[in-house]
Structures are given as C-alpha cells and as structure tokens.
C-alpha cells in the first residue's frame, strides 16, 4: 500500500554511465516532481509534470531527462553521469486542485557516482 515508491533505493555507478530512476504513485495524483537533495540536505526542485505535461524545468543539465508515461509514473534518466550528480533523488506527487500544496514524497534514491 506504498503511496509513492521509487526504484532503486541505492544506485552506485561509474562516471560516464547512463542510469534511470523510476517513480510510481498510487494516490491518484495528477502532478509529480523530482527533487535533488545534496549532502548538506539542501532540497531543490528539478522537474514537475502535471497530467503528463512538463510544467517546471529548473536549471538542470540536459543530461537529465524526465519522462512521464502516464499520470502515475515519472521516471528520471541521467546520461553521462558525473561525480557532482551524487545525491539523494526524491520523487513526490500532489493533486493540482484542493490540497495542491501538500506533496507526498517517496523514500528517495541514493545515487553514488564513482
């Protein structure tokens, strides 16, 4: 009965590789997000999709490409991984009407680039 799930939980890879992180929510929400949390716990929004349309695209290298196949899924693909990409990546979801300010976060994916 997990609300927002992410896979994998841990990801260790070499510089230059390409990797993907998957996110799914079963809350019936129509908006999903990707956040990056660095080693100092600073949490920064990267992307947001509403009804499968990209609505927020912060200044993120174009090596990062989100994909939303449907409202319940938002995946993040990262090309040519760099050391600075090491962080915890959180997926979140919310509803665009009513309680739109309450976001539900997944457990995070810890990415380590060696």
């Amino acid at each position: 009965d997990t609300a927002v799930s992410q896979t994998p939980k841990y990801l260790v890879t070499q510089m230059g590789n390409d990797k993907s992180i998957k996110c799914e929510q079963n809350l019936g929400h129509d908006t999903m997000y990707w956040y990056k949390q660095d080693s100092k716990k600073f949490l920064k929004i990267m992307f947001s999709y509403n009804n499968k349309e990209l609505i927020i695209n912060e200044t993120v290298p174009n090596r990062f490409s989100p994909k939303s196949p449907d409202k319940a899924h938002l995946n993040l693909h990262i090309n040519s991984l760099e050391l600075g990409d090491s962080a915890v990546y959180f997926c979140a979801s919310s509803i665009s009407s009513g309680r739109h300010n309450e976001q539900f976060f997944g457990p995070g994916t810890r990415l380590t680039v060696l």
Partner: protein
Amino acid sequence: GENVGLHLPTLSVQEGDNSIINCAYSNSASDYFIWYKQESGKGPQFIIDIRSNMDKRQGQRVTVLLNKTVKHLSLQIAATQPGDSAVYFCAELTGGFKTIFGAGTRLFVKA
C-alpha cells in the same frame, strides 16, 4: 561515513519541552508556507501549512506563525517527544506548483 547534515542549524531540546524552529523566507508573493519533517533515511513528510493571508494556524501539537512584515515563519512543537527528532524544512509555494525549500533545521530531542 555519511557526511550529511553536519552544517545544518541544530536545535536541541529536552523531552517534554516546547520547540520553536524558525525560518526566514524571501518571496513576498508566495501563496502558501509549509513545514515538512524529514526523518533519517526517509523522504520529507508534510506537517502543516499556512496560507499567506493568515498569521497563525494550529494543528495537533504544532502551531505555525507567519510574520509577513519581517518575512518570518516559525514552527512550534508542544511537548516535544523523541519521535519529533528529525530535520525540519520550511517551504514556500509559488505559482501553484513550485515549492522552494529552505535550508533545514535539525531537531534533537534529549530523553
């Protein structure tokens, strides 16, 4: 080992005491101000929010105060418990979808 959160502001309180966590924000046009709690190894969890046209809102054991004059937000936790130990983030919602998070404060509760 994990070098996470060593530079976070830290608040240490005795179990049973009240905690006050403060936050300064920058955008006067934000629609909502929100507090999230993040326990170790987990994602942030919504605690309480306040609309920009209010100055106080109470929840269960928590109260949020908003002072728009000085752009200050605070979270008060009554009768702090060990389970309240976490990192607390203030956040502001602008434009309907974009949530900007503050730097976070680590709360330690001493038994």
